[in-house]
């Protein structure tokens, strides 16, 4: 277990014009590609399998195994789709990565596509981040001009076209099958599984859908080797990952560190909580992961340990809240988000979030009624595991976990509005009083 940062994807973020091909190449960029082009596709898959790289989009499914699921005897074309629809509240790792270091993603895409024998790849970027889309498109253009993309890449006989696709701003399109529907030009709603995308994904053809950070980690694995990658992190959660520290901390930002680092260590690295504040609760991986409290400061941030602590590692979006924060209000805000973003396909998520948000709004206003807490828990029980996709489950996590740790605040909502108990001004970054 190491306690130092391991900048790999973020190593060049401070470089002059780090996003350009020249700057990236200067630092040794695209050497992974050169190496990969000399490898058999199956050897690339094996190397990634060996590395223990697990999906960085939150679920942690082994990336190499996912690539291995692609049926190579299927006569249809194979596709690689990069999920860059980063929309989870609190999650902010892929967008800065693509902004500062787009070429590591492009290089990863080429290597991953070659591994699964895809000749077309897509990066599906959420539509709101136009600056990132421009930057990616510029990087792709540079890569074409340098011969990294296109026909017969560097004489290898391998062809790849990469398309940057702008989404239209729907959280659901981060769900991989909804993303595929959206990419096909349809309404973004999750598909019935099976068939899984590996068998019938984009245009009913074998498709790998990977997170940005997963794909961006591939060039390093190819160049540095599985052992190098595995030297970081814990036994089952290997490698480096970007931890996004936000909220009431002294120095919010991206901290690239080995899996298994603790929040306490990260807070130390980030200068601690903001002056005069103490940790009240936090999310380990965005708003869909049950919240944790100060008692979990020493939980190793890997898939297993966070799971054992009753939450999920998710996207390592560490939202830090101090004692000025009303849990009820925070949960209401998240629930409003889920209500707004529910795609509407299935009943529990569509109707449940509509209901939960209204009940929480009442409670936030101090108009809670006896039985509301039990009602919230029961509604969450009727959504969790009953929805069509995981987004419904995610909507219940903040509520059930908040009631678990801060039930008294929900009880207080029967009589007192949250703004009286926790004046919102005190929670702002610029608050002078109340902290």
């Amino acid at each position, binding site marked *: 277990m190491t306690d130092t940062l391991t900048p790999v994807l973020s190593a060049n973020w401070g470089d002059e014009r780090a996003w350009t091909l020249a700057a990236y190449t200067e630092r040794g960029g695209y050497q992974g590609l050169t190496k990969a082009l000399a490898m058999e596709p199956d050897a690339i898959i094996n190397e990634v399998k060996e590395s223990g790289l697990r999906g960085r989009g939150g679920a942690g499914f082994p990336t190499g195994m996912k690539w291995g699921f692609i049926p190579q005897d299927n006569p249809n074309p194979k596709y690689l789709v990069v999920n860059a629809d980063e929309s989870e509240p609190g999650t902010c790792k892929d967008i800065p990565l693509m902004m500062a270091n787009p070429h590591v993603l492009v290089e990863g895409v080429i290597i991953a596509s070659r591994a699964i024998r895809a000749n077309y790849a897509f990066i599906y970027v959420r539509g709101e981040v136009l600056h990132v889309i421009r930057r990616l498109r510029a990087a792709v253009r540079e890569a074409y001009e340098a011969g990294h993309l296109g026909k017969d890449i560097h004489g290898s006989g391998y062809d790849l076209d990469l398309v940057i696709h702008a989404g239209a701003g729907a959280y659901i399109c981060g769900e991989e099958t909804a993303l595929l529907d959206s990419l096909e030009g349809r309404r973004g709603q999750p598909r019935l599984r099976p068939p899984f995308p590996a068998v019938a994904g984009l245009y009913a053809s074998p498709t790998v859908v990977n997170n940005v950070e997963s794909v961006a980690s591939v060039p390093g694995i190819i160049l540095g080797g599985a052992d190098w990658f595995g030297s970081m992190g814990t036994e089952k959660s290997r490698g480096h990952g970007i931890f996004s520290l936000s909220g009431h901390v002294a120095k919010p930002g991206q901290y690239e560190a080995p899996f298994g680092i603790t929040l306490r260590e990260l807070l130390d690295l980030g200068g601690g909580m903001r002056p005069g504040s103490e940790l009240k609760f936090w999310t380990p991986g965005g708003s869909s992961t049950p919240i944790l409290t100060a008692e979990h400061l020493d939980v190793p941030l890997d898939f297993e340990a966070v799971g054992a602590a009753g939450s999920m590692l998710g996207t390592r979006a560490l939202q830090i809240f101090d004692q000025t924060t009303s849990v009820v209000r925070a949960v209401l805000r998240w629930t409003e988000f889920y209500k707004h973003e529910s795609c509407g396909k*299935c009943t529990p998520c569509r*109707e449940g979030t509509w209901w939960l948000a209204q009940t929480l709004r009442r409670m936030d206003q101090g108009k809670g009624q006896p039985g509301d807490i039990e009602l919230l828990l029961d509604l969450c029980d009727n959504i969790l*595991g009953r929805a069509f996709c995981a987004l419904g489950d995610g909507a219940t996590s903040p509520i059930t976990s908040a009631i678990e740790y801060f039930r008294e605040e929900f009880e207080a909502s029967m009589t007192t509005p949250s703004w009286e108990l926790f004046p919102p001004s005190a929670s702002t970054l610029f608050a002078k009083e109340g902290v």
Partner: protein
Amino acid sequence: MTVTEPDNAQATPVELVALTIDDVEVSVPKGTLVIRAAEVIGTEVPRFCDHPLLAPVGACRQCLVEVPDAGNGRPMPKPQASCTLEVAPGMVVRTQLTSDVAAKAQEGILEFLLANHPLDCPVCDKGGECPLQNQSLSHGHAESRFIETKRLFAKPLSLSANVLLDRERCVLCQRCTRFQSEIAGDPFIALLERGAQQQIGIAEGVPFGSYFSGNTIQICPVGALTSEDYRFRSRPFDLVSVPSIAEHDACGAAIRVDYRRGKVMRRLAGDDPEVNEEWITDKDRFAFTWSRQEDRLTTPLVRNQQTGELEPSSWPGALAVAARGLASAAGKAVLTGGRLTAEDAYAYAKFARVALGTNNIDFRSRAMSKEETDFLGAKVAGTPVTVSYADLEAASTVVLVGLEPEDEAGTLFLRLRKAATQFGVKVVAISSHTTRGLKKVNAELIATVPGEEPAALEALELDSSAVILAGERLATVAGALSAVAAKSEATGARFAWVPRRAGDRSALDAGCLPTLLPGGRPVSLADARADIAAAWNVPNVPDTAGLDTDAIIAAATAGELGALVIGGVELADLADPAAARAAIEAVGFVVSLEVRQSEVTELADVVLPVAPPAEKAGTFVNWEGRHRRFEKVLAESAALPDVRVLAGIAEELGRPIGIKTTDQAASELAELNDWDGKRAAFRSRKQSAAKPVAKKVVVSTWKQLIDGGRGQDGAEAYSATARSSVLRASAQTLTTFGVEPGAEATVTGPAGSVAFVAEVADLPDGVVWLPSNSGVNLGAVVGVGHGGKVTLAGGKA
């Protein structure tokens, strides 16, 4: 709600999977969904989005069950939607009956569904037959815990002139959108917005213009979709439901007729897996008010010889006058139209031979030919089913010739679409252009100039697993039916004759042709005549072939017919309506059996009111040759079927036909059996040599489903969903004749001119397509039919 029986009629052995549901072991075919496996043991898992004929979607989550063992010894961690879960060997399933988890999950979903539902059951059309209402009672909480604000929508929202949407009632199960995209192929409705604002809608300016839109109303599990015609008209529990058969085309679709106090309130699709599955056309569903228009005949009418006016008469008086007129006339003939039941058609056939002593009888109130007469007699009349709906799914190729199924046989169209999209059947269309309907069955077009269908068919490579569907307008193309017969003989491909009317095949089989006696017995064969004479207990039947429709009209015009009995013929349907009118005027004595006043009744000497299908029992023989028996719907109606009226005239004539009721006619017809003796030989005809006429274009035409036909009278909202009436031609043709696409073009024929908006389509040069009866009756106004020639010019005449 829809509960299906498992299909036990599988011929090939199916692999069975054994699983346990609620501690009951059950074996079902591999691939069965758990929700349907549960039905096998009599357990109904509540559901909304699930529909056995639509692809699983798993959207509503109502059918959640617990799966303690997925068949691999491990439990599934979450409750599973039983409508998307396939059975697995050794699987253990617990439904709401044995699992608290499943029961709570289902109750929870129902509570969610009702959270935003208006609960306006007392004023909702669906109240009383509503799956949401029923399942709330059987599986839900009595009280809702929802005290927050419901979402509101403006309502109703017109999806089309006929289909209205109440977005507040909608539970977003997507049955309607899935039906439209999967079954009908008209995805004009779709989900819009998201979350609780998600709703069904149409694209701006593109209404829900599907011929099958009414099915969405029927499969809606709540009262969200309603029809303009039926909304707020009645409550399900006030209705009496009677199964019946649709009378608007030759498909024989099963329907359910709901009536109240002697008045049909609505019609629904019946469930007949062999024929229409659970779908019908909008015409079958909405066009039922035609028989209760103000011009409905309620009493016999006899023409006063002094005033020349038709005056009400008693039945005995009218029958006596009819008999006297017929008895004294020299030269008699019978035109029966194509809308009769088999029993009534048989009564006409027998009446002509026994009471009038003539073979002058023809059911074809449309363009016909001698080639068709021979073809039908030799190859179709009184033959068993050789091509069925199910056969279309198993065929390698289905060839459409002279037939536009979406317009002319909607039920057949849907089955053809299923064959093409689900079973990969190749559809080849010998037609003038790629219509919307042909696109939806992925048809390969063999673009053909009207008149050249025989050559196109000749050139096709077919094998014995192909099926040829020949439409009735081939009667107007010399050599076309000969080519169908020849192709079938040469390749072993089966064919079916697909007429347009519900009673065409019934009339053919009943002997309403000048060359045919009932059961396909040729008039020309002595043993066939003897067979019938014996059955009818008469010394003989007329032994010479009678006059066909064209010859009857010609003879009438020439003053050679003394009397004419006409049942259910619209003059506008005949090849030359003006000539037909003149012909009838020239006949000395005309007896008309009709439901409503018509051009024929206005010319008749005696008018005898008869019952429309809803007011009598009978049988339609559909294009397959399948007998579709239906019972009388409006029990209170005293209207008489044609058979009873004809029996009355025959009695008065002193030459009784021996049958007075539909049941008697049916049993006599059944006893006759189909003719198993020799048939008249079929003499093959050749295609006419193409004679291009300078400065003229050839007309391709057929009737659109929703058109000006009188069978749709009174169904205004339905009629408003008709497709627009356009002229289609190739860009080259339009240019040649100085017509701007999108602008008006005028066609001129022997009878006159008419203007249509021109549209470019993939027709062969020198051909225009026009609708036969959409706003303008082409035969009457222009004087042409399919294959006719007209001049074409830009602008409005």
